[in-house]
């Protein structure tokens, strides 16, 4: 809990109510949280506010908007921004052939096949899972990913 103090989390989510409830949960836990309803505004806020972690809804109106956000951020000129941990909020990994994260049991993967993020959460979000993922993303144990 003490770790949370002062850490800034950006919630990129097009559903204002969903973003609001996540923000309430994070703030209750001692985090600071800001929101952005679109990927574009999200990128602006990442650059302006330099959050410690991003919670990202990948199924935004334009469909691939969330994915674009990830690739844009991972290619940012600023190395500190480039490595901002991202946790994806979605149920998409159940319905898409695109695997968002390498299987824990299988270390071999092609970097392009997986979204370079630190974790994913089903929607609607279970708050205990949300908080444990956020803690992990903020520098507990590192989740396997390709950050080459």
């Amino acid at each position: 809990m003490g770790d949370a103090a002062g850490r800034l989390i950006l919630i990129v989510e097009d559903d204002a109510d969903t973003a609001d409830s996540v923000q309430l949960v994070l703030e209750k836990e001692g985090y600071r949280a800001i929101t952005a309803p679109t990927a574009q505004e999200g990128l602006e806020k990442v650059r302006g506010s330099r959050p410690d972690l991003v919670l990202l809804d990948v199924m935004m109106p334009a469909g691939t908007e969330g994915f674009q956000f990830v690739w844009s951020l991972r290619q940012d000129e600023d190395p500190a921004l480039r490595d901002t941990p991202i946790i994806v909020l979605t149920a998409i990994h159940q319905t898409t052939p695109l695997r968002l994260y390498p299987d824990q049991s299988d270390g071999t993967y092609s970097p392009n096949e997986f979204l370079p993020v630190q974790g994913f959460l089903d929607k609607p979000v279970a708050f205990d899972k949300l908080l444990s993922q956020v803690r992990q993303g903020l520098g507990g144990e590192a989740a396997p990913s390709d950050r080459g």
Partner: protein
Amino acid sequence: MAKSADQSAAAGCVRADQELCAARSRGSETASRKPGRILVVDDERGMREGCRRILAPEGHQVTLAESAEEALRVFAPGTQDLALIDLKMPGMSGLDLLARLRELDPELVCVMITAYATIDTAVQATKSGGYDYLAKPFTPDELLLVVEKALERRWLILEAAELREQAERSLLLVSTEQSRTRTIIQSMADGVLVTNREGYVVLYNPALLRLLAIKNRLPSLGQPPSPDLFPTELVGWMEQALAGGETTMAAHELAGGPTSLAANIALVRDEAGEPLGVVAVLQDITALKSLQQAMGDFVSMVAHELRSPLGAIAQYLDVLRAGIVSDPERMNQILSRCRERIGALSQLVRDLLDFSVLHRTTERSVAPLDLAEVVSETVELMAPQAAERQVTVTADLREDLPRVEADRAEMGRLFTNLIANAIKYSREGGAVRITSRLTDGYLALEVSDTGLGIAPAAISRLGEAFFRVKTTETSQITGTGLGLSICKQIIAAHDGHLEIESEEGKGSTFRVLLPRKGTVSHLPSKEHDHG
């Protein structure tokens, strides 16, 4: 001479009369015999009448002629079954008459009556086509016996002719049937390909060539299906059907190409159960496939539209349950948001029902309609919503607004959706105006607002099912993304158009163009000035 002949005949007839009763009593066993039409030609009146007296009671229809000439006058082909002809008559002889009658009616049976039954005359008579001869004087029994035999002959001839005709008729039927079947196969919309038990092409129709896009070279009959012309899959299935002996119809889908084809393959067997060949029927299922695709897309869009608000509500309820919020005002605000989201879900369900009804509706109650009335009613109905957002709504329509042919309920729904949108996407204190204009053949009704406006990229997507403009400003506005889609459907069903003009930050105008009465089929040109 004629007189003495008459007398002798009369004598014969007396003898005949005497035996008539005996003949009749025996006749009972021949009573079931079919009576005939008999022509009696004799120059002796007694002979003629005697014959009639013997034959008529048997049911025969007897015609008498006193000479060959008279016989030819009364005779017509097909009217007589049997002719009894006296060999020796004044004028034309019996033999000449025989030849003439046989010429006129080859199926007529002729029996010669002769006073001098010699081998000579008998031979002569039969040579000329006579069937039998009867020697004068004869007993009624002798006459009846000869007549019976001759008629039997006649019936046989007729039966044979009938059979011959039947055979010819059924041959004709078979050939008509063949050409009819060919015509049906040729004009079928489905493609037909038939191979024989060797797997060689024996039949195909034009639809097959069209569906498989075979243009430059026709498939050769009596050859295996050319791999250049036919999809290997199709040929494979037909071979499999032949080899596997599967009689059941198998349905396959041919992959590739712009058209989706379904192939029904069936093995055809003969009466003994031996495979005769394989019939493939190809159907164009492109429309069906795209319909299935559209349905699948729609269902997944609906699922997505349901998931978002349900997730939001679930998370808010979890927040309250976990005691994360303690401020009563904040708790209340969360509860109202949940209530609003549930309201929006209910609206989504209503819109989905509207949507499906509109899709199914083929009959509209179209009548000349005063849209000014519909619009002012709608404005009144929307007053509470407008007041809540402090938006003024005014209808400013021409006095001479022409009536349009339209469904009242659907027009109500159309303007409710448009005005509700205008209010929702207005800023507080904004203004919504409904105005009208007449253009060439069309009545234009415009719903304008001074609201948020729409980005150009989004305008083209408006009206797509579930598309909603999403910006920071619109994030609190609830909607299903079906309203405009429903509007577009209603307008299209009335042969109209929807035009949208918008400037971000300044407002939008939704213009409904409906054909004026009597000009329904008239479409405006692209350059038509609506501005």
